[in-house]
């Protein structure tokens, strides 16, 4: 390829990095990692190459099972269980650490390479104070002891963006929110001033707005300290926004790597192309142009206006819904009230999709459960097709169940593991005594075909299927009784992007075909852009903004909505987006 050039490097923010003599900090060559399983060795990583320069940010992107975390963990010799590096080399700071002894690795870990783990909820020891756990990192690396260490702990926590750090250091992890815990973990990761920080899905478990604040802070901090960052993420938008160099992994192999913008603008490998096309965070910015090209719009029109000027009646109408939960108070017998849903009103027009968007704790799932009549509202009414749900008797409720069906978030929990796929899909038919054995089997075949799964899936059990397939089964089950409304509670949140895109397309097609109405509950605004006609943005139990999707995205009125929109990873890549169009084809 081209000759090495040693010009100053300009990153996305315009900051100039002095070239560090051109020597890479981390160089992974032809890395092979194997896991021993009952059925023999399985190659988790096959010939991965990766280079990180001092002070640079690099991201490994891939879906679950692509080997991205395994690669990173191989670097710091923290492979779980039976994992073993079977080939290739890992050179860190000029030293080959591929087969370093356990003792040598202890030296490298923490002091040279820091790690920010994925799940802030389980990666802090609940019985020790936060300060103690940061101090542990200092002690283990011989940085500071005694009084010095205490002072340093407060400094580190403050540096990681924790307000009132000295007092916070004396608190336990359960007193911290998810974002604060992640900050504490960042403080631990950076305690020994490592040259490289591995951030393994550092914010995947956090709300988008928190995610953005934390990533901004991490970026600023590592730039200031000159720390190189290796991001592991499933989110292409986030990766492209935060890293200058991308490594795309697929089934244990690096399929494409290069400068972030180049990969986004001009993906070469078919897998990367798919990934770029499917990334919701990027697509949401592009759907507009796709619409203009008239590709998406016909589909959208078919969805909303198909079947000859659809009746514009409201199939579900929610009025002044309030739900108050009684929570155990401080003293025995005492209860405090918690308003999960506060005066929420909205409606779903027949054949359209209304999305409820909000972060965790916004009360969106409670609303979903009330609409499904699985939970009684404290106040307010839900009308389904003009009937007040609270007036239904047992028989009417049974009929109502036929007409409104749910799809849940976790495809691993929503299917009974003891039921074959056939029994799972047949269950609603059996419960409602629809048809005889033969006609039910025919219907199950039809439904499987509808969700694009072969009829042979019938004999299988949920454990054998992937997340996306299970979600298809859940959709088939929901469709079995030909409902009018489907409540999708985070129905695509647990899926990898490509699968997510497929399921969204499937839901869209089914809506056009069967005239379904969706209530779509999600935390992900990017997904909303792809599927919803109307959006209600919820915050702490209240609807803060309700409008059509285009209006909310193009013209958000509330600051909170704007904040949510800005927090979509990749949203700021708009600059790139324009840049992409400028690039010669």
């Amino acid at each position, binding site marked *: 390829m081209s000759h090495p050039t040693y010009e100053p490097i300009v990153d996305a923010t315009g900051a100039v990095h002095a070239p560090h003599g051109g020597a890479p900090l981390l160089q992974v060559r032809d890395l092979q990692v194997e896991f021993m399983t009952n059925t023999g060795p399985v190659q988790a990583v096959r010939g991965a190459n990766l280079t990180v320069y001092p002070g640079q940010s690099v991201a490994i992107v891939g879906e679950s099972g692509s080997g991205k975390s395994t690669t990173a963990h191989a670097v710091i010799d923290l492979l779980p269980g039976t994992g073993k590096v079977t080939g290739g080399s890992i050179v860190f700071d000029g030293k080959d650490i591929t087969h370093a002894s356990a003792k040598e690795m202890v030296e490298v870990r923490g002091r040279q390479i820091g790690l920010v783990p994925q799940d802030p909820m389980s990666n802090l020891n609940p019985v020790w104070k936060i300060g103690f756990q940061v101090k542990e990192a200092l002690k283990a690396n011989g940085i500071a002891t005694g009084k010095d260490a205490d002072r340093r702990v407060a400094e580190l926590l403050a540096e990681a963006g924790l307000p009132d750090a000295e007092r916070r250091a004396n608190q336990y992890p359960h007193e911290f929110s998810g974002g604060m815990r992640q900050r504490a973990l960042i403080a631990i990761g950076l305690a020994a001033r490592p040259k490289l920080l591995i951030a393994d899905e550092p914010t995947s478990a956090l709300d988008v707005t928190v995610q953005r604040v934390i990533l901004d802070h991490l970026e600023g901090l590592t730039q200031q300290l000159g720390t190189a960052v290796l991001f592991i993420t499933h989110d292409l938008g986030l990766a492209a926004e935060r890293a200058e160099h991308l490594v795309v992994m697929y089934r244990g192999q690096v399929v494409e790597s290069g400068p972030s913008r180049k990969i986004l603008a001009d993906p070469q490998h078919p897998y990367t192309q798919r990934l770029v096309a499917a990334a919701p965070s990027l697509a949401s910015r592009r759907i507009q142009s796709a619409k203009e090209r008239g590709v998406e719009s016909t589909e959208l029109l078919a969805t909303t206006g198909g079947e000859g000027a659809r009746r514009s009646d409201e199939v579900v109408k929610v009025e002044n819904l309030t739900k108050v939960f009684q929570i155990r108070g401080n003293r025995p017998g005492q209860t405090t009230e918690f308003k999960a849903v506060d005066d929420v009103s909205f409606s779903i027009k027949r054949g359209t999709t209304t999305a409820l968007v909000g972060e965790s704790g916004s009360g969106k799932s409670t609303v979903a459960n009330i609409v499904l009549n699985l939970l009684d509202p404290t106040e307010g009414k839900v009308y389904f097709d003009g009937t007040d749900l609270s007036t239904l008797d047992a028989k009417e409720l049974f009929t109502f169940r036929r007409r409104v069906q749910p799809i849940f978030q976790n495809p691993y929990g929503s299917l009974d593991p003891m039921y074959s796929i056939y029994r799972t899909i047949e269950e609603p038919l059996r419960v409602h005594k629809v048809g005889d054995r033969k006609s039910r089997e025919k219907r199950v075949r039809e439904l499987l075909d509808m969700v694009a799964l072969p009829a042979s899936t019938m004999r299988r059990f949920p454990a054998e299927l992937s997340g996306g397939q299970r979600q298809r089964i859940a959709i088939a089950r929901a469709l079995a009784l030909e409902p009018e409304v489907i409540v999708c509670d985070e129905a695509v949140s647990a899926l990898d992007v490509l699968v997510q895109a497929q399921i969204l397309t499937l839901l869209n097609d089914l809506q056009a075909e069967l005239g379904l109405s969706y209530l779509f509950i999600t935390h992900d605004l990017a997904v909303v852009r792809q599927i919803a006609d109307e959006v209600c943005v919820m915050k702490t139990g209240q609807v803060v903004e309700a409008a059509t999707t285009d209006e909310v995205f193009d013209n958000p009125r509330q600051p909170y909505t704007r904040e949510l929109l800005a927090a979509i990873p990749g949203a700021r890549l708009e600059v790139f987006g324009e840049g992409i169009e*400028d690039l010669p084809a």
Partner: protein
Amino acid sequence: MPETPTRPDQQHFFAQLDETPVGVVDSVDESAAPASVWKDAWHQLRRRPMFWVATLLIAVIVVVALFPQWFTSVDPKACDLSNSSLPPSAGHPFGFNFQGCDIYARTIYGARPSVTVGVLTTVVVVLIGAVVGAIAGFYGKWFDSILSRVTDIFFAIPFVLAAIVIMSVLYNQRGILTVVIVLGVFGWPQIARITRGAVLSVKNSDFVTAAKALGASRASTLVRHIMPNSAAPIIVYATVALGTFIVAEATLSFLGIGLPQSVVSWGGDISDAQRRLRANPVELFYPAAALALTVLSFIMMGDVVRDALDPKARKR
């Protein structure tokens, strides 16, 4: 915007497609054999030698218990004092005890009451425990509170001690059925507790909510979804408990308050033999060994079944 200059090793790279074929997103492997939780468990069990050893032992014990006459033609109750403490001889491989009974025949015939008590008690305990535990876990509220207190009370009473007290009261009604009922009465709280826990953990699963949302009644949800998913821990506990019930029966018989003298049982024989331990130790050895082997085989079975069914050990 100008293009960022790339550093060595960081040029735009992409793998050749023939080296990295892109699979169909989310395809179903149509050729694989269908598998369920039970089939998975069976696959795991099949490969454990311990499972086969336990199965073989249990099979032999059950056959002996059902058809003792196939293994000996000697009547265990036909004792002749002239044979007292005689060493092994042709047709009497283990010799005779103090009363002049054939030890081999008594060991063989002793299997039936032990296995009967073990199996029946387990059935009684599982029936009561599973029903009570399931109702408590599923319907909760006041029934759950009462049940939890009742189990606490039963837990506070040592199992064998309680059985001793009750059996001494029922001294004149001693028999297999009495022992089963007494052991059952004090044995069910453990199973009820396990069932309650399993039901509670399954109760809030999405698939239960899904069943509710499609109109299935509460009772049918409990029977069709929750119980099958709670079965594994119950089965594991029941297999291990079977062994402990056999021990409990032997303990009671040893103390003379279990099975009556008229029933040939290992516990009774061990009790008789202990007085002659120094003079004729084999008299104690054979019934004790038979008892130990039986209990061991059931506990071994429980162990491997647990490994196969434990959700934590389960893959995926």
